């Protein structure tokens, strides 16, 4: 039986990587269900090949290895999906071609994998900052920076001076930087 520490480390790993893997698969063209399959199979593969896997021991060097697993599982998901369609429409191309494309895809995905990871970090940091600041501060940041509304519109909508909007922006950006560094430290990338 695995100990409590293992369960906690696994939960932490799952929390960091779940939406990242799902979104990565979705951005490669997987449906929501296919993306869930990719996540599930990637986690199962990890459990099989690394039964003694402890996220806190391998976290720094883990992400590159995960790309290899996730890429293979995305190819598997596409192959199965095509077979579902073949059941419905026998005129479809045979499924084998996908396997020959797999290596090409993986090399092409390497850049996106890192790019999406950086975006994922930003969103994780944003979620944390949202919990730290007062709602009206985050709201002015959301409208002005994230939604890119004009400052004049935000002052009217929120009934706050324009200068306050800029202060909120600086404050939230500084907090975002802090949180990004904190997350990197937690996952062993700092």
């Amino acid at each position: 039986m695995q100990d409590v520490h293992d369960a906690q480390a696994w939960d932490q790993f799952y929390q960091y990587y779940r939406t990242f893997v799902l979104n990565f698969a979705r951005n490669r063209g997987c449906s929501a269900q296919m993306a869930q399959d990719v996540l599930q199979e990637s986690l199962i593969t990890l459990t099989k090949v690394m039964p003694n896997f402890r996220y806190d021991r391998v976290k720094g060097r883990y992400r590159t290895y995960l790309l290899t697993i996730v890429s293979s599982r995305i190819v598997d998901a596409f192959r199965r999906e095509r077979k579902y369609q073949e059941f419905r429409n026998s005129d479809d191309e045979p499924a084998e071609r996908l396997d020959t494309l797999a290596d090409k895809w993986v090399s092409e995905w390497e850049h996106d994998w890192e790019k999406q990871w950086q975006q994922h970090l930003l969103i994780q940091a944003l979620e944390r900052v949202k919990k730290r600041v007062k709602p009206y501060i985050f709201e002015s940041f959301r409208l002005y920076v994230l939604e890119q509304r004009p400052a004049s519109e935000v002052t009217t909508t929120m009934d706050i001076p324009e200068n306050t909007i800029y202060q909120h922006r600086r404050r939230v950006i500084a907090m975002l930087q802090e949180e990004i560094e904190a997350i990197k430290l937690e996952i062993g990338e700092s």
Partner: protein
Amino acid sequence: MSDDFERQLVTAYKQTQESDELEDNSLRLRKTRMLLLDNPPPFEPGAYILVVQVDVAPYWSTLSAGLTIGRTDEAGLKIVGKWVSTVHCKFNQDESDWFVEDLESTNGLQVNGTEHDRHFLSEGDAIQVGNCLLIFLQVREDETLIQ
């Protein structure tokens, strides 16, 4: 703070707004993982199911194309449990992909909590046959154990 940082932030934020609501299967995946850790899968490449029944220790069974599951000797693999039909379902293979089919069982076939007549299997899929659970797994040639 650079404009580049803000640009990246806005791009990432927009993507989250566009993405679908993502279903959280964490509880099921966690249970499956614990089952696999407590019952390590075979090393030999192949396809397997972990058979989990009430009052019987879980065990691995090798899948072969056409294998049927049911509660009597008519089935290729006999399992003991409530709401299991005489011959309940059948596993089959399409090249490297496996699927499971309901054989007009009385209580149906569920995979990951959803009713299916036929379902292409992903590793870790939980197949409910009556009150028995079958966890599907494949051991591939290129998978090596990392300690």
